[in-house]
């Protein structure tokens, strides 16, 4: 029987929550594996019953460069530093639970947590100041229209893949999920850091009541288990052949014109391409605003 929570009796005989059951870790691992298998089968069947692509725009905008910048160097640096921190956090959190000893895993874990916090703070500042933060975060009517179109595409091989702005519907949904889960882990993680030896806080295990402490541990655990699923699916899609062009854009910074026109709506992701050409270097040095104008559907 799978348990959801770990509970114990505190020294006063009260039944208190102490955290999430590690059974859920295995549930997440199995669910991720089943999802990969299920999606692979679904995708194979879908490929066989290939649907007609969405009608191409009547007239592709002129002057679309060969390489279109999707992620600036700053954005990529954030992404990969966050990825390193997140993977370290997951490994140090769950590998010891699986029975493999990692010396000083708690220390490595909280240091990775601090690195993640710094990366998130940097990302928030960077995205508000230099990226189209509100269009990524907004829930306008077009978001839901795109969502319905996306669901229809998943459900029916006849429904074409909707062309998105810079950030497709599924990416935005993933981003929203990561915000909720990662911030839950971060906030509870900071509270948990107050209970151990770090340079930041004087250790105080009695900062919260037993009940509140248990709740903090449980939220941290649920967030951690959820991150197993989220990160595993993220890596899965990043490695899928049909998605690798997106993955490469997070390495090189740009997407090519062919993928841009095939998957994105130039009206939603406006590329003012006078600065680009087929010889445009892939350095990410282009200013975001020149190739990644704010979405007009927000």
């Amino acid at each position, binding site marked *: 029987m799978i348990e959801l929570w*770990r509970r114990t*009796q505190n020294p006063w005989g009260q039944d208190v929550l*102490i955290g999430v059951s590690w059974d859920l870790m295995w549930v997440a691992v199995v669910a991720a594996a089943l999802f990969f298998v299920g999606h692979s089968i679904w995708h194979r069947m879908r490929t066989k019953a290939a649907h007609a692509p969405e009608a191409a725009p009547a007239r592709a905008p002129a002057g679309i460069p060969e390489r279109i910048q999707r992620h600036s160097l700053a954005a990529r640096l954030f992404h990969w530093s966050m990825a390193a921190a997140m993977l370290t956090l997951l490994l140090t959190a769950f590998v*010891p639970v699986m029975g493999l000893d990692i010396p000083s895993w708690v*220390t490595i874990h909280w240091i990775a947590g601090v690195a993640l916090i710094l990366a998130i703070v940097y990302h928030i500042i960077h995205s508000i100041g230099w990226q189209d933060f509100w269009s990524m975060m907004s829930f306008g009517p077009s978001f839901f229209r795109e969502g319905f179109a996306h669901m229809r595409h998943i459900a029916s091989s006849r429904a074409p893949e909707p062309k998105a702005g810079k950030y497709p519907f599924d990416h935005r949904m993933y981003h929203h999920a990561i915000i909720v889960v990662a911030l839950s882990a971060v906030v509870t993680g900071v509270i948990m850091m107050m209970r151990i030896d770090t340079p930041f806080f004087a250790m*105080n*295990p*009695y900062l919260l009541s037993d009940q509140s402490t248990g709740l903090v541990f449980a939220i941290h655990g649920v967030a951690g288990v959820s991150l197993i699923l989220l990160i595993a699916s993220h890596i899965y899609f990043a490695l899928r052949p049909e998605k690798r062009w997106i993955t490469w854009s997070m390495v090189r910074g740009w997407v090519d014109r062919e993928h841009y026109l095939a998957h994105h709506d130039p009206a939603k992701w406006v590329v003012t391409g006078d600065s680009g050409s087929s010889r445009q270097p892939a350095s990410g040095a282009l200013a975001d605003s020149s190739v990644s104008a704010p979405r007009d559907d927000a």
Partner: protein
Amino acid sequence: MATMKDMIPAFELVQPTTVEDAIALLNEHGANAWVLAGGLDTFDWLKDRIKRPEVVVDLGGISEMRGITDAEGGLEIGAMTTLTEVVNHQRVRGEFGLLATAAGQVATPQIRNQGTLGGNVSQDTRCWYYRSGWPCYRAGGNTCYASAPLAMNREHAIMGRNRCVAVNPSDTAPALVALDAKMIVQDRRRPFVHDAEDFFIGPSIDITRMTVMKPGDLLTRIYIPATWANSSFYFEKVRDRGSWDFQLVSVAAAFRMSGSTIEQARIAVNGVAPYPVRLEAVERLVAGRTPDAATQDAAGDLAVRGARALRHNDYKIPMMRNLVRRAVRSVSA
């Protein structure tokens, strides 16, 4: 007739006669099994109703785990050999006196008659919050009660802490580390040989265990190589009363001398961390030096570098410093 209801919770007692059978039983029952050696740690847990194993695997009938034999110039000691046998063994006393001295300071003669070397090194910590059944980290909970601002932590750790601040209580553990002993641990597939200093683990590796042994593993033998035979040894255990007490701090040291110079040393301290601490930096410091006052002071100061006291155990820092000084002084002319 009155019926006594407050009994030790019932368990199934199994008494294997071979290591193979014991391993099979331990693996069959996993975390529900409890290993019974001399019983001196075990029955505290059971009588306090803190541990409630379903199956107790009594190793008392496994003769191959008893006795001391010569092995490759050194000694091989079965894990079920009693501490009294260790103390009285001629070669242990003659060549590895450090272990004989340490084993001779365990508790009382009665306890040494019953307690085993394997049990002494495998025993659980004596942190009373943990031993009283409080749901601390070591017990699977999410709090260390002993490191709280107002906790009673006079006997707790000054180094090697990681959420848990309990200390290793074994007297023989630092002696085995100093003698570079090898711990032979059998799991269901094969035996593993661990250096004694790696056999004991801290909470940074696994907060619920004191040693590398996981459920299903069994310490079968302890091999003491000839490397440090007949060296100059020093063991000192400081405790609150003259006998039948756990150490506050203990030191075990082996010195190989060349004239009046320390050629090589191995020094371990216990009672200061959740595991016996080998002082490698001190060993390097004293190697090649005469054990004069300057070396003694330097060794003591270096030993406590990085130590941090809790609310009530700051006395352990000078105590550890002085014990290391005295160990080095013991080989001065």
